[in-house]
Each structure stands twice: as C-alpha cells, then as structure tokens.
C-alpha cells in the first residue's frame, strides 16, 4: 500500500468521525437550549458549539456578535470556514477519492452521494429545516458509511488504517466533548453548581457523545458527574469511551505490523502506553485534575497521530 | 606532445528551507575517447550517498545522487586524471567544394546528423537578424568558412558574464552583443546550421594558459562536422581551434543536453550555488618518453 494512500485512508476515518461529532454536538447543544428551563442562555450554547470546533476566535474575527443563525450557519456550511461540517465532509470525500482503488464501490458511492447532498445544502434550506435536520442527515450517513466500512471491506491494511483513523479521532472528539463541558460548567454561576443545572450539563455531555441511553441502562441508579465521566473515560465495553477506542487503536497498530524495533520510540510502544493507562487508571486518580488529564490525553493522541504519519504515511 | 591533467569540479549549494528529497545529476566527468585517456574518476559528496550512474541519450556517463536524508547544504566534487593526445592536423581535406556540399545535402547526412542540424529555442535566429549572420560564399570550403565564422563571432560579441544567463537565446545575445562562452557557442551553432553544417555543443574544461593553475568555470566550445574528416573543434570565445588544452566532458545539440548539474528537489525557498573548477596540468617526469 502506498504511503500516500495509507495517509488518505487514515484521514478518511478521522474526517468521518470529526464531521459526525461536530454536527451532533451542534444539534445537541442547540436542542438543549430550546427545550428546558434548566437550559443556559443562548450565548452560552453558541459559544460552546464554537469552542467544540475550535472556531470561537475565527468566528468573532468575521462576525460582530453571536447570532444564532450565523453561528449555526458558520459551523455547518459556511464557505469561509475551512473547518465547518461541510468542509470536513469535503475532505473526507477527497481522501476517499484519492484512495478510490482501495475501497469498495459500495463505500465510495455512499460517501459520494453523501458529499453531493451536503455540498448542495443551501443557507435557506438550513434555515428552513434547522440544524437538527442537518445534523441528523450527517449522523445517518455517517452510520451508513461506517456500515459499508464494516460490511464491504476485507480486513487488510486499508480497513485497518480507516479503522485506526476512526477510533483515534473518536477518542480525541470524546475527550474534547468532555473538556468543553467541564469548561462550560466552570462558567456557570456558582449558585448553580452541584444542582440540577449542572446535572443537566453532564447529561448534555452524554448526549453529545451519543451515550445517554446506554449510560442510563448501565447506571440506572446513579446520576453523578463521577460516574458519567467514568463511563466515558474508562468503560471497556462502550464504543464511545476512550478506553474502548484506545484499545482499538492499539490493536490496529499491532495488526499493521510496521517494521520497527519495539523500543520506546516505536508507534506500538506509545500506543500501548496510552491504551494501558486507560485500562488501569480509575476515576479516583484523575478526578482531581480532570482538565489536565484530558488535555494531556488529547496531546498524546495528537503526537501519536503525528508520529504515525511521519514514519509510515509520509511521501 | 601529450599533456596530463588533474581535473577538479566542485560545487557547494545552500538552501533556505530544508530539502526533504533530492535527485542530482552531474555531467562533469572528462570523456574517454580517441584523444583523451581518463583515469581515476572519483566522486564525493557531503551526504555520504553512494549514488549511481547512467548513460545519457548521447552516451555520456552521468553521476546521479538520490537522497531523502534532509539537508540544507550540499557539497559535491569530481576529480579525474586525463591524458590528452594532440589532434591530428585538420584543414581542407581531399574533397572539392562541390563534393563537400553534395555530402552535406545528402539524405544520409541529414538523417545521420539531424540532432546537430535542428534548431531549438536557444539556436533559432530571428530572420530580422539575418544581416548579421555569416553565410558561406559560393566556392568556399567548409573548413575555411568555419574558421571565418569563428572569427566573425569572436569579433561580433564582447565577453561579459553579467547580462546573460542559462536560458539566454541567440536573439537576446544578438541584441545585447555580449555574453559568455555558452552564448558564443549557441551563436556559432545557429549560424553553422543555417549553413547546413552539422554542429554540436561541447562542454568541458580549458587549460587556461601555460602552466598556470587557477579556479575557473567549465568552458564550452563547438564541434563541427567536416565531410570525410569527421568532427573538429572550434572555440569562438577565444577564436581558436581546439587543441590539447581542451578537455571534453560531453556534447549535445545545445546547452540543455550538456548542463553539468541538474537537480530536482523537494523544498521551499531559494538556494545559492558556488561552483568552481580546477584544471591542473601535471608536469611531465624529467626523463619520460613521448
């Protein structure tokens, strides 16, 4: 497999997850504001959405204020935003096109149809249908694409690299969701801390990671930030948790069997180190310095991705 | 009398941005032929790459270096030893003017030497400059004409390294009236070919004078085809016929076939090149025989 193609497949996986998470996050935050007395202000929500995409500064440099329509438009389909959901879907498709001969026709068609649909999304349609419809479309197509990946690709390097991209990016995105929510909660009035307003935010966190239902089933009795964070960080069996995804990352790296000495510089070693952290750490150990821990994790994952690219996916 | 030389070619390149991947091709080694015996050709480079060689379309050996090491500086040198035999004496030969012309215009000549009769962007003279072109008068032999052409160009141009560069065409040189050896050679080639005389660009080394040693640059001259006699060298830059002081490296249709160094690099930003050549005559042993 060409290094460049490997790179495209890796990033294909990453962009699938990235666009899905950004779309879902916008949808969930926006809905949160609409339907509950516990909801924070409109500005609170819009800021949170922009932060998730790392677009707060760039938005403010182009628009005078946080307006609902502008922010939603900016995050989803604005042409002047290189990191919008639409842009990410464009990159996803470009990477698929570059690796066209390594993926199945079914997968390619699913991606291509999705791309053309989102590419032609007009501002008026977005206004009329709302961010909920838009995001739902993104989530549904993302599922179809992942279904094709799962069902039509032989488990060779192509599948392994896409899978690696998906799980790595998912881990990063879930960590970012958690970081954002911690940050959001810190902005709440002190009077609201510890009460239903705060709990509502933690519930939003779970919904943003599409984990609310499973969490309730897994912890019917509990409702505390401790167990919710624990669920998303350390649960070995839940596909959105960091522990689960990092296991997958490690496994995929092993399967690729890159020729490298198993020394502390190797990809395998570094991936293993992060994954096992999540195998054996407990919530108690990280609760006190959650933000720091999450930031460190995101940094480690980005470093891992950079190392992977530099060593094997470079051309 | 045979002459012996040590030839050194050296280049030092520096780059603004790091070079991620590079391929260099050097066409600088003296060429082994009937008049030149070449030995101990050695290549060294600052990247410690072994490199490899291939023969270019004209049959000359090119030293090639491919590297992914990543660098901002690159040094390369070639050294060789050459023993030069003097040319045979050439003049008008045995043929009459009519016989010479018959051979030149024969299909055989046109086909065998088409590479040295065609015109490129370097060697196409605009018809508006035809009054400055020397056309062979009827009845003149080729050798005499070429000698005349040599002088014609030598007088027409002034040697000046400033205004021209590697891509300069003969029309630009005609306008400037100045140039370096490359430009003199292109001019000679352009005019000789307009007179249907096959003519090739030669790149190599010139022993500057006597037993003097000094840093210099590579030199360029011409080889023209004399029917029945073969290829013979002219140096329009100095209005001389080539002799034992001219050490040939390669020939081609024009400069683009002979460029001593070519590089394809993955980098950003600019670069600086410093190159130098040494042609060192080796004094003969006191009691060696000729």
């Amino acid at each position: 497999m060409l290094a460049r193609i490997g790179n495209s497949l890796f990033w294909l996986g990453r962009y699938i997850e990235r666009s899905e998470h950004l779309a879902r996050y916008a949808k969930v935050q926006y809905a949160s504001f609409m339907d509950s007395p516990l909801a924070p202000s409109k500005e609170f929500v819009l800021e949170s959405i922009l932060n998730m995409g790392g677009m707060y500064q760039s938005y403010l440099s182009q628009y005078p204020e946080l307006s609902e329509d502008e922010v939603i438009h900016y995050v989803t389909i604005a042409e002047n935003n290189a990191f919008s959901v639409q842009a990410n879907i464009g990159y996803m498709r470009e990477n698929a096109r570059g690796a066209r001969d390594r993926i199945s026709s079914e997968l390619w068609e699913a991606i291509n149809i999705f791309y053309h649909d989102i590419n032609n999304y007009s501002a008026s349609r977005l206004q009329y249908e709302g961010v909920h419809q838009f995001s739902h479309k993104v989530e549904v197509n993302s599922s179809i694409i992942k279904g094709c990946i799962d069902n039509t690709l032989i488990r060779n390097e192509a599948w392994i690299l896409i899978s690696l991209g998906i799980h790595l990016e998912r881990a990063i995105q879930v960590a970012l969701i958690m970081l954002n929510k911690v940050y959001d909660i810190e902005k709440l009035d002190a009077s609201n801390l510890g009460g239903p307003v705060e709990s509502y935010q933690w519930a939003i966190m779970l919904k943003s990671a599409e984990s609310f239902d499973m969490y309730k089933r897994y912890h019917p009795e509990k409702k505390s930030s401790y167990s919710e964070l624990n669920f998303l960080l350390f649960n070995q069996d839940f596909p959105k948790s960091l522990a689960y995804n990092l296991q997958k990352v490690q496994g995929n790296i092993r399967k690729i069997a890159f020729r490298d000495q198993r020394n502390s510089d190797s990809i395998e070693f570094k991936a293993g180190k992060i994954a096992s952290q999540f195998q054996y750490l407990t919530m108690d150990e990280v609760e006190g310095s959650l933000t720091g821990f999450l930031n460190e994790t995101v940094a480690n994952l980005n470093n891992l991705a950079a190392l992977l690219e530099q060593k094997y996916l470079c051309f | 009398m045979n002459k012996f030389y040590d030839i050194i070619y050296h280049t030092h390149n520096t780059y603004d941005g790091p070079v991620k991947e590079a391929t260099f091709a050097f066409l600088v080694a003296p060429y082994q032929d009937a008049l030149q015996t070449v030995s101990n050709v050695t290549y060294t480079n600052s990247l410690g790459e072994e490199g490899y060689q291939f023969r270019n379309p004209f049959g000359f050996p090119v030293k090639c270096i491919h590297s992914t090491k990543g660098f901002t500086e690159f040094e390369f040198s070639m050294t060789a030893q050459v023993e030069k035999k003097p040319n045979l004496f050439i003049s008008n030969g045995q043929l009459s003017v009519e016989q010479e012309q018959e051979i030149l215009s024969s299909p055989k000549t046109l086909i065998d030497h088409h590479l040295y009769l065609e015109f490129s962007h370097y060697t196409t003279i605009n018809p508006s400059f035809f009054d400055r072109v020397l056309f062979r008068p009827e009845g003149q032999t080729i050798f005499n004409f070429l000698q005349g052409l040599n002088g014609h160009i030598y007088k027409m141009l002034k040697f000046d390294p400033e205004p021209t560069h590697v891509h300069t065409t003969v029309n630009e040189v005609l306008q400037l009236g100045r140039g370096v050896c490359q430009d003199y050679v292109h001019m000679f080639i352009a005019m000789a070919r307009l007179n249907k005389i096959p003519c090739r660009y030669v790149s190599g080394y010139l022993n500057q004078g006597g037993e003097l040693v000094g840093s210099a640059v590579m030199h360029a001259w011409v080889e023209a085809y004399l029917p029945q006699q073969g290829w013979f060298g002219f140096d329009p830059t100095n209005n001389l016929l080539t002799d034992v002081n001219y050490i040939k490296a390669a020939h081609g249709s024009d400069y683009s076939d002979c460029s001593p160094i070519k590089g394809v690099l993955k980098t950003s930003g600019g670069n600086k090149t410093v190159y130098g050549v040494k042609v060192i005559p080796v004094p003969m042993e006191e009691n060696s025989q000729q």
Partner: protein
Amino acid sequence: MGVGSIQNNSAEVFGNYELKPEFLDEVFSDERKPNDHYRKVLDYFAHLSAQDFKALNDHTKLSFFNQGVTFAVYSDKAKGVERIFPYDLFPRIIPAAEWARLEKGLIQRNLAINHFIHDIYNKKQILRDGKVPAELIFSSKNYTKAMLGVKPVGGIYNHISGTDLIKHSDGQYYVLEDNVRVPSGISYVLANREAMKRTLFNLFRKFQVRTVQDYTQQLLSIMHSVAPEGAETPTCVLLTPGLYNSAYFEHAFLAMDMGIHLVEGRDLFVDKNFLFMKTIYGPHRVDVVYRRVDDDFLDPLLFNPDSVLGVAGLMAAYREGNVTLLNAPGTGAADDKAVYSYVPDMIRYYLNEEPILNNVHTYRCEIDADYKYVIENMHNLVIKPVDESGGYGILVGSKATQEEISNFKDVIRQNRRKYIAQPIMALTRHPTFIENENQFEPRHIDLRAYTLLGKDKQFVLKGGLSRVALTKGSLIVNSSQGGGSKDTWVLAE
C-alpha cells in the same frame, strides 16, 4: 418526414425521425425499414413510450453520477464542476463479419505503426528510403531524442492505441486518426456496457454480444508480457497526474479492475536506476508503468523541469531496461495528423501487405500543391491542426462563415506545417434520444477502437466507444466538447 413503417409507440419517439439522402443511417435503410440486426431493438423499443425513455435516461444519468463516472471539461474553471459523460440508450450494433474485417485492419495498422516508431528511433530506414519525409518526423515536437537507441521489451512502443474510425456514405470504414500517446475513453466503454446491462437487460439478452469486460485482463497480461527480464511476478502500476485530471475516473477504474496500484509522481522515486514506490512498509520495486502522464511531464531531470507529475531519473531507468513504460515515450511522432497520411505506406513497407483499412485523403499544407488546393477549396474541407486533440482548433469549411474562413487562411499561412485538410466525410448517423425533444433524432457517429500490443500478442477490444455529436448537424464527436456515447455491440455471429 418520419419512419412511417414502424408502428405502435414508436410513432411517439420515432415519428419525426428524419432521413437525409446524403447521409447513411446505420439503423434505417432509405426505404425507412430497419436494417436486419436492428429489428429486434426497434421491436423492443416499440413497447416503450417517450416517458419510459426519459425515465430510463434519468436513471442511467443518476447511476453514472453516483458512481463518479464523470469528467471535467478543460474550459470549465468552476470549482467542483463535474459532468456526466452523456450516454444514449440506443445501442450501436456491428455484425460479426463487418467487425472481423475491422479487427484485422486494426491489428495490421497498429503493428505497422509500431514498426515505424522503432525504425525512427533506430536505423531510420524508412526515412533513408524516402518513403516518409525525414524532416516531417524530426520537426515533430514529439520526437524525443531520449528514445534514440532504446530497445524496449518485446520491441513494443505502441502498447495501447485508440483508432478513430468513421463510416462514410459509401458504407466503408475510414480511419480518421491514430492515437498512440495516451489514448483514453475505455472506462466509458466499460461503464456504458454496465449501464446497458442494468437498464435494458431484456433487450441485451436477445443478442449474442461479445464481451468487453476482458479488456483489463488483457491489458494486465500485456503489461506482464513486457516486464523487464528477471521480474518474476512483475509489479505493475498506473501513473496518474492525480485527482484533478479530467480523466481521473478512468485511471482509478482501470487500476482497480486490474488490481494494480494507482500511483502519482510523488509516490515514486528512482535510485540505482530502478524505480521504487513508497509504501507504508518502505520502498518497493516497480517493473511496469502504465503511465497516463504526457511525455513532457514524465521526468523533470530530462524534460520539463517544473513537472511534479513525473519521477526524476525515470527515463534513465527506462533506458537501462529496468522498468517498462506503456506507451513508450516519443510515440507522438507517429500520432501527428501529418504523419497519418503515410500510414498506408508504412503498412506496405514494413508488412508487405495492402492496407485493409482506408485513410481519408489528407492534404498537407506544408506541401505547395496541397496548400494551393486547400486555400482554393476551404469551404469543402475540414482543416485540422496536426498536434491538438479533443476536437479543438478545427475548422469545418462547410459550416464556417466567410470571415472565419478568411481568418483561418491567415492562421494557416503563418504555420503551414501545423495544418492538414481532409474532405468533409459524410459520417453515418444513428438514432439518439434527445432529452429536450423527447424523441429520437439522427446524430453523426464515429467509433474509437482499442488495440493492445504486447510481446508476441495482440488484442482488439470487441466493441469500442461510439461517440455521437449531440449538437444537431455537428460532425465533431469528440468528448471534450460535449459529445455523447453509445454502447457498442459486436455480435458473435
């Protein structure tokens, strides 16, 4: 005046079908009766209404679009604009005997061209014998000195050729053009067959149509046959200029179907005169390259130094015999429309045979007598530049205004070597479904046939790309300017 003898629903879509005496229609004879091999098609179509046709048409378009069977037209600079290659439902049928002759003629012609290319880069005997003017060949901008003395594996230069043929009003096939550099279009042939099978399967199975699906297998086998010696299981790749090339879909399609790597210049490098590709596990040697990159961009060390599409040192590796390139560089010297007029002479010279396929009479403006004739008869001629493709730069004398003709005369005068002229051929016509009119109308048609040459093997695709000029009355069928295509059926008997 319509084709009255066809009843049922056909009146809806064939009711206004116009026959003209000066053009042969491939489906209907001049008594408005369908030619034998088309009878079954018309019977089948009789059951379909105009609405049905429109629906089938739309369905096929969508299918092509979703699959990405698109291309970009050069003059469109808008971002992300992809066009579907228009496809027409009415298949073009070629009976077996007619095809057999075509096939023999194609092999003969391409073998002769191959001999010619070898000759002009080695002994140049045909030039010495005065059969082809030496000056014509040496002055071609595609004559590549880097090919002098090269001995490619199996002596093959012209591995893949696309021969453009037309049928004239005399019922004979004529070769319009030879394309031996980087001919394209095969993916549309294969996509059209797929589309035909999906939409009109019931019609398709009424005939015994020879397959086109074997093309890629044959091509791969050709590639293997010309691999350098010592390469036991040769590594073959397809070199593409990349995503933004107008024919990218085809590059990807072919690579996939053959099961070979699709690579770009940046994936390759040359070291020690061998070609390698950069894989995730490190460098891997490459033996055969099917390159869809033009000569000038192949090797920045030798040709265009600014090219990022090629590989530095590739030509050296090729000359050393360590890698095979399909097609060989420098084949363009035989691709030139001026050289085309000598192909029948090449057949006689190298093969000692009479040409099976006809050339169209060609006037070379470089030659004084021809030039005089051309200038005096421009309104009856098609004038073409020798070195452009895609239908650009052509003047069809009968369709041009006085002013256009006068301007073109100036253009020719300034560069006579660049222009040739041919009599306007009366291309046959074929019923094509015109969307806006919701009916079938006759359109001029040609055929691009694909021939493969390998070491001791030859293969001609049983079919080809039948191209129709979508503009009413237009004779320029080439795809870059908005033509369309039909599935081409070569019958087994």
